């Protein structure tokens, strides 16, 4: 028992001295610890505030972006619907042009009327499906030129009579 006491007492004294030294150190550096804790809390608050500000800014940008995108999509939808209507009008116009050729040139073989109509539709589809803007404009000019020539010749044939729409056939061969 006394041996155990002899072993335990120095150990206990060692333990108490360590604890006392720790307490003294803490008392000496109490102010610094408080300042450090305070600075840490301030830094955390500043970071939280900065992040909150960025989040608010980003959410505002998101709302603007969404509104802009919705507008753009609506415009695109309207443009696509208008394009479809325009395409339908073009097809109807080509049909009417074919009927006008057949009415104006009674002697004209049906094969020629169909060929002219077929060629006009090819020009229309070339223009519609072209990706390059400048090329698209070129095709559009070709189509308008073709339809204008045909229309003028049909009007002339109705007034003065005619056998063949020669200028139109010339354009057809060239194109």
């Amino acid at each position, binding site marked *: 028992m006394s041996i155990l006491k002899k072993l335990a007492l120095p150990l206990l004294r060692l333990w108490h001295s360590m604890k006392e030294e720790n307490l003294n150190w803490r008392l000496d550096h109490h102010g610094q610890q408080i300042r450090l804790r305070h600075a840490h809390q301030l830094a955390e608050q500043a970071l939280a505030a900065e992040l909150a500000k960025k989040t608010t800014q980003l959410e505002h940008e998101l709302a603007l972006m969404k509104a802009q995108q919705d507008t753009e999509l609506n415009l695109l939808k309207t443009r*696509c619907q208008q394009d479809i209507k325009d395409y339908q009008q073009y097809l109807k116009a080509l049909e009417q042009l074919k009927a006008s050729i057949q009415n104006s040139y009674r002697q004209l073989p049906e094969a*020629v009327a169909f060929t002219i109509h077929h060629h006009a539709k090819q020009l229309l589809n070339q223009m519609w499906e072209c990706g390059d803007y400048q090329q698209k404009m070129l095709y559009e000019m070709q189509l308008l030129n073709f339809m204008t020539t045909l229309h003028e010749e049909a009007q002339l044939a109705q007034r003065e009579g005619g056998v063949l729409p020669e200028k139109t056939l010339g354009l057809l061969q060239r194109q």
Partner: protein
Amino acid sequence: MPKIGYNSHFIVDSPPFVLIRICLLLISCAFAAFIASDVLLRLGLPWLPETITQLGLFILLLAFGALIVSGLALIGRQVAQAVKDYFSGPQTRLRKLLFAQNRQLELARRFQAKKWQLGFVYENRRRRLLAADNQKSFDALAKAVRKDLRLLKKRSPKDIHQQWRRELSHCQRRQDSGALLNLQQKIAAWNSR
């Protein structure tokens, strides 16, 4: 007693680290007990070596127990700290910011996808209109060719007439308007001779 510095006080003086120091002390006591029992055994003493060996083993067991407890305490503290940090102000705000950034990327991707979808839908509609118009033109052309063939039935040689009829049904099966147009031009050319 030597002065212990700032770092060891601030970090090393917490309960888990104190426990680690205690368990290292216990391990050294246990080794001291084993060495003492070995010396006493060589000296030939009767029951002391065995008792001291048992004591050493007990102290070693205590040391390992303390090590395990300090390990668990350290892990527990880390987990608690991690949970506290997760729910702290800056981390919560950071998660909100990252979530908003993610939404921004998703919005941009969705916009591109919707644009592509609109273009695809309307292009499909245009192609359906074109297909319907092509079918109408083809039917009108086929009707015209059939009418021409009917009119030329008596005037044209039988074999040529049959050849034309075969070509007409071939074009109708393949829906080839170009070939049908050529056939009509051939018939018109023969008719105008």
